[in-house]
């Protein structure tokens, strides 16, 4: 019994250490300046204020950053889920030539460090033919710079997603597709009407994984955008910080706002998060 109590005490102490930065951020965001910069600092808010949020939400561009992040993360999820489940299904259940070769090629791409592909990917995006004023050879315009298409490039069709969906579809017996074929269903109907819906839980996991990764991304939006209207939330947050580095109240409320979406998803789907971590550890 005492052992159990000791464990609880330890769990709580570590829990406080892990959660404290968040608690401190949220409480700071509701404090007026005189409390924020008071000594000794206090965890309790004496004069609760939403002034900081009011300030941040009225900054020109902030809601735009939020909107851009939602679009980028949302599109990344939709494209990733669709194409990764299609490819995952094909690798698990359909027979074709050189299947193993293509699959290992995909797996190999997971091991390439981001720095190696960063500059070429930027150049490919910038010189994408026939887009953003570019000619057939990719000259003359800005290509995919400052576009949603450019922003989502790193987050669509991850090899990991294909791998994860393949693992899932491998557990489903091949006979399911066979019997549908005998009933005369076409190949695409077999996938979209039978296999795609079955994969709900894996698709949910892949969706969350993609969303949080796209939402978290900083380096790529920093490189691919220079137009303020195309910036994402993380980028906006960093710019806001460097412009108002002493304005801790608004800064803390802005930070809280960028965390809220992932926090909501996390609280609702906590179980999935843990599952993804484990399944991605098996890659």
């Amino acid at each position, binding site marked *: 019994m005492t052992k159990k109590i000791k464990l609880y005490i330890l769990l709580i102490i570590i829990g406080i250490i892990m959660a404290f930065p968040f608690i401190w951020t949220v409480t700071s965001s509701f404090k007026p300046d005189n409390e924020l910069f008071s000594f000794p600092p206090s965890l309790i808010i004496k004069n609760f204020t939403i002034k900081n949020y009011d300030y941040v939400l009225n900054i020109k561009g902030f809601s735009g950053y939020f909107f851009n992040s939602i679009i980028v993360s949302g599109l990344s999820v939709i494209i990733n889920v669709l194409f990764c489940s299609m490819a995952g299904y094909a690798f698990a259940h359909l027979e074709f030539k050189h299947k193993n070769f293509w699959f290992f090629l*995909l797996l190999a791409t997971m091991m390439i460090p981001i720095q190696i592909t960063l500059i070429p990917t930027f150049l490919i995006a910038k010189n994408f033919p026939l887009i953003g004023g570019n000619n057939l050879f990719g000259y003359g315009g800005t290509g995919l710079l400052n576009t949603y298409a450019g922003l989502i490039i790193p987050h669509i069709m991850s*090899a990991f997603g294909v791998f994860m969906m393949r693992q899932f579809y491998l557990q489903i017996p091949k006979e399911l597709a066979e019997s549908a074929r005998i009933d005369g269903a076409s190949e695409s109907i077999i996938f979209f009407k039978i296999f795609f819906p079955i994969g709900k839980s894996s698709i949910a996991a892949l969706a969350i994984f993609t969303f949080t990764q796209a939402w978290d991304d900083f380096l790529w939006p920093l490189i691919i955008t220079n137009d303020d209207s195309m910036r994402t939330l993380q980028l906006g947050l960093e710019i806001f910080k460097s412009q108002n580095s002493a304005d801790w109240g608004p800064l803390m409320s802005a930070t809280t706002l960028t965390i809220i979406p992932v926090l909501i998803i996390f609280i609702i789907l906590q179980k999935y998060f843990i599952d993804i971590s484990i399944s991605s550890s098996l890659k």
Partner: protein
Amino acid sequence: MTKKSKKKIVKTAILFIMPVIIYNIIFKIIPIFYSLILSFTNYDGFSSPIFIGIKNYLELLKSQEFGNSILRTGIFALEVLPLNMLISLILAIMINNKIKGISFFRGIYYLPVITPMVAVSIIWVWLYDPEYGIINFLLSLFNIPPVYFLADSSTALSSISVMRIWRGVGWNMIIYLAGLQNISKNVYEAAKLDGATEIQSFWKITLPLLRPVHIYVLIVGIISTFQSFTEMYVMTGGGPLESTTTVGLLIYREAFEYMNMGMASSMSFILGIIILILSFMSFKLNSKNNEGV
């Protein structure tokens, strides 16, 4: 199956894998070769690249700035990885207990992992603030004068390491938990019958059987710490006195601030090779040790 339907299946399969294959060829495979070619050029991103052979690499070999940034990145990894592994293993053992409310604690420990890096970095800048930061207040309770965590070149990198450990332990904890749950209970029971204490079982059973997990955690850790960029960019901008300029930050500056894309490509290739060698060494360490078991 008829020939016709077989053909249909192949057609569907090709259609289904095509987008992913084409995407990965354009944005993963081609960039490796593209990057390799660029690393032998002088290229500003606008005018045509000028082929200069291995000049970039020769220059980097002599460059103190580049050497120092690699050293710093290595120190950062050495500060973060062992502590991260140790703490996450302890946490995993703790949350492996089947007691009430344990999933709540798992969730709390995991929370920093999914929080955006920019947000986490800003939060820690506030915690570390020399005048109003809560950490300096806590230190003042022990009569320790204010520490300029991020503004002092002797403490800046380690301050970022502490943040990284805090952020990363939740992830490794879950991986270790999965590893722990894979160890059969029979092994422990057999050891108990032989008179082994819990501490002996930990050293003789748990730790060795987790070896693949240690290696996995180590390799993923090497890859992620050697690529770190965002936290340095947001928390210190690489300063003070370049004390937090990691290779990732240096490559970014070289490519997108000074527009030396050729030189930056050479840097990224060297970084990629270092990561590859370290990962391979960790992997080898595993198979070599296994022969003895």
